């Protein structure tokens, strides 16, 4: 017998948590002397009011889908991958290297080549923490945090000492050659007769992100590997009994996770900047945690949560442009969302469970 109906668990609990986070955010806005109503208006208008706003919202969402899926896949195997940030950084390196050094004839090849390299690099970066957790019992959370810092140092070194073009001042690679530039939503929608903002960075990577959602859904719920990943995630002793190689499945799940996080690079590195800069990931790896939490580790949930966070990011940028509210407000909102949907989940869940139990008792 369940304590609560499924819909309450999947929809009601996150929704109430979200409302609580929103209410507290409104208080914060009030406390710094601004109007929450105005703020929300600017954010909604800025994120969804124009195709340009949509373009940015979807651009951010694309990144968050990748990192959210990355966290979710690892979560299904009970691995808490906090290293999406580092994996995405190194994934960016992979994408940059092929874009710079492989003469792609057409963007389609560049997309596939860049995606492949980014995933490969991201997976490779996830491999060591995964291996250490699976074979030597080192806590994955700590090792992935450490690997985020190590990734930053590696990238820093390479951008400053190796990849920076001569005469360049900022630590960044040269601009990628023209054939690697990915079509934006503007380019893609124009043939269909839809006018989409030319300047917004949302690009073909969005399609790849949606495909990744479908892929992850199939993987987790329809394949044998997914079955094994979930089994391991729920009970390691059970998995071992069933002849599932726990270290192997744990490592594979982390490799997929790292590949997804790394794969994000097609969006921010190839699709937007068209060169590799120092902090191209911009915390998307961490947002992935919140996205996966909110999305209940389900690809569809991840998609919705990613759009929510895309909205927060784009709305926050608009706030910073048109009001004096610093964009750190978004960091606060993000923190509150993680806090309520993740850490304080039981605060909402326990009273609800009690409510549903007593409801059931009264109507037998």
């Amino acid at each position, binding site marked *: 017998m369940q304590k609560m109906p499924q819909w309450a668990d999947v929809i009601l609990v996150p929704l109430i948590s979200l409302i609580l986070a929103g209410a507290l955010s409104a208080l914060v806005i009030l406390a710094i002397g601004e109007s929450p109503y105005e703020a929300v208006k600017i954010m909604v208008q800025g994120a969804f009011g124009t195709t340009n706003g949509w373009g940015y919202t979807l651009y951010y969402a694309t990144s968050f889908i990748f990192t959210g899926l990355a966290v979710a896949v690892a979560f299904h195997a009970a691995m808490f991958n906090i290293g999406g940030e580092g994996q995405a950084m190194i994934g960016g390196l992979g994408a940059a290297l092929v874009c710079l050094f492989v003469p792609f004839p057409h963007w389609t090849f560049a997309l596939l080549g860049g995606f492949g390299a980014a995933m490969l690099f991201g997976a490779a970066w996830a491999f060591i923490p995964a291996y250490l957790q699976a074979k030597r019992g080192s806590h994955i959370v700590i090792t992935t945090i450490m690997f985020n810092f190590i990734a930053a140092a590696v990238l820093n070194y390479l951008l400053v000492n190796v990849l920076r073009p001569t005469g360049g001042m900022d630590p960044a690679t040269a601009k990628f050659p023209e054939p690697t530039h990915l079509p934006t939503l503007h380019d893609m929608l124009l043939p269909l007769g839809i006018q989409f903002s030319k300047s917004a960075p949302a690009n073909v990577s969005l399609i790849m992100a949606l495909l990744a959602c479908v892929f992850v859904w199939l993987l987790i719920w329809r*394949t*044998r590997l997914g079955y094994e990943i979930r089994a391991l995630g729920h009970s390691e002793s*059970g998995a071992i009994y069933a002849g599932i190689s726990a270290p192997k499945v744990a490592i594979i799940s982390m490799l997929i996770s790292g590949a997804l996080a790394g794969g994000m690079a097609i969006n921010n590195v190839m699709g937007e900047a068209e060169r590799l800069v120092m902090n191209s990931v911009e915390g998307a790896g961490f947002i992935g945690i919140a996205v996966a939490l909110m999305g209940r580790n389900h690809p569809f949930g991840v998609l919705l949560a990613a759009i929510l966070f895309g909205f927060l990011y784009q709305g926050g940028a608009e706030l910073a442009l048109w009001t004096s509210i610093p964009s750190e407000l978004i960091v606060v909102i993000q923190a509150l969302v993680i806090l309520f949907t993740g850490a304080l989940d039981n605060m909402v869940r326990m009273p609800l469970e009690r409510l549903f139990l007593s409801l059931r008792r009264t109507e037998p």
Partner: protein
Amino acid sequence: MSGHTELERPTMAAPPTPAIELKGISKSFGPVKANKDISIRVMPGTIHGIIGENGAGKSTLMSILYGFYKADAGEIFIAGRKTRIPDSQAAIAAGIGMVFQHFKLVENFTVLENVILGAEDGRLLRPSLAKARRELQSLAAEYGLDVDPDALIEDIGVGMQQRVEILKALYRHADILILDEPTGVLTPAEADQLFRILDRLRSEGKTIILITHKLREIMDITDTVSVMRRGEMTATVTTAQSSPEELAELMVGRKVLLQIEKAPATPGKKVLEIKALRVIDADGIERLRSIDLDLHAGEVLGIAGVAGNGQTALLEVLGGIQSATGSIKMNGDALDLTGRHSGGRSRRARGIAHVPEDRQSEGLIMDFTAWENTVFGYHRDPKWARGPLMNNAAIQTEAKAKMERFDVRPPNPKLAAKNFSGGNQQKIVVAREIEQSPDVLLIGQPTRGVDIGAIEFIHNQIIALRDAGKAVLLVSVELDEIMALSDRIAVMCDGQIMGQGPAASADHIGLGCLMAGMGGADTQQMQGWHISAAAKADPAQEPAQAAGSH
């Protein structure tokens, strides 16, 4: 229900005040009603037994008395005074001590530190430790509870750990001592020693509540006994006026039928040949020492022994999930003993099915649906594949049929495994493994926590498999189950086979001696039995003592 109103009958003399009286205790864990309106009285200076099947709510009730759980309703009277016990601190203050089923000790603390934890005098440790050391010495002298105060808990055996738990209670001056299944982890000799200590405590006027599954223990030591079933207290009787048969009936609600109708075995060729099998686990403890065993087609080989004497390791090695040295040959081919993580898979491929001892943490994924669990371990079978994907529709259809065949209730494959009762969970596991029609079935504690109807069903399935010419290796701590099902029996103690022989000539006393690691006169009487040197070599103790009187 004959003797259950004994204590409620009005007596002429003014009755002594009960040491403990519980009135109308109820407790739910979410949807599970673990205790329903339970009342019980325990007289001072007596040993009061509580029996009941797994999950009947015994531990829950005692944990409430000890303040570990909070009751939803009900009252507690200690020595006639209504007492509120919101936490263990209050229980300790009321003179209650409890030894839990799963010990509550800090593994990397010393015995002394564990004893004083929560009962320190003053803020500094040094004086507390010194005082406790003196007190432990006097307690040890008084009750024969010797322990090394400076040993780390993780370094001492379970028997010793239990002593520490008892010392903890005595150190806190408990007048009422609750022991939750204390003998489950003990050898008969250790259990006997424990009972001598309990006897001693009783004679000093302490009140003891003893939870156990073993009717023999109840009959031996308790003054009164309460029976619990499905969260309810079904009866309280005076032990002397009751009988094991009556108690068993009260426990399960109907007559126990442990005799199985089965045809004599027709053993076939040797399927498994185990030689010099040795297991050293991750903690460096030797679990198996040089096991030699054969398993034939068409027979049930029962492995008897007190829990924790290597049976689990044996099942795991055979099931491919524990590494070992030595050799196992199946139909002449050597099996891989490296215990690779995918070992379970290769065993299944060879036709070895495995019902693990612990269904909840191994046999099932509790959060998976029933249908997902019906292919657990066989999920890579091409039968369930549709291209690169799993054929969920086929699995579901088959699961539904399987659940109906095995009378799993409710027969709804979409329900999560955790939402089935323990017995039905076990049926799902057994159905999955038996329906593979394996050449070898490894089955551990097949009926632990399973109700009587299901026990019969599962037993019959095992025999049917045997009759189909398959080999069955049965591990159970229930001697009666072993004796009822097996064609041959091997007894394990301390990682060794103490003896093996035909089930027909085995008897309780002889098996009990072997389970305690002793050979001796009683075992010699069992015809056709081969008693190992290890068992004979230990004539130090009186065999009769260990077997328990019956």
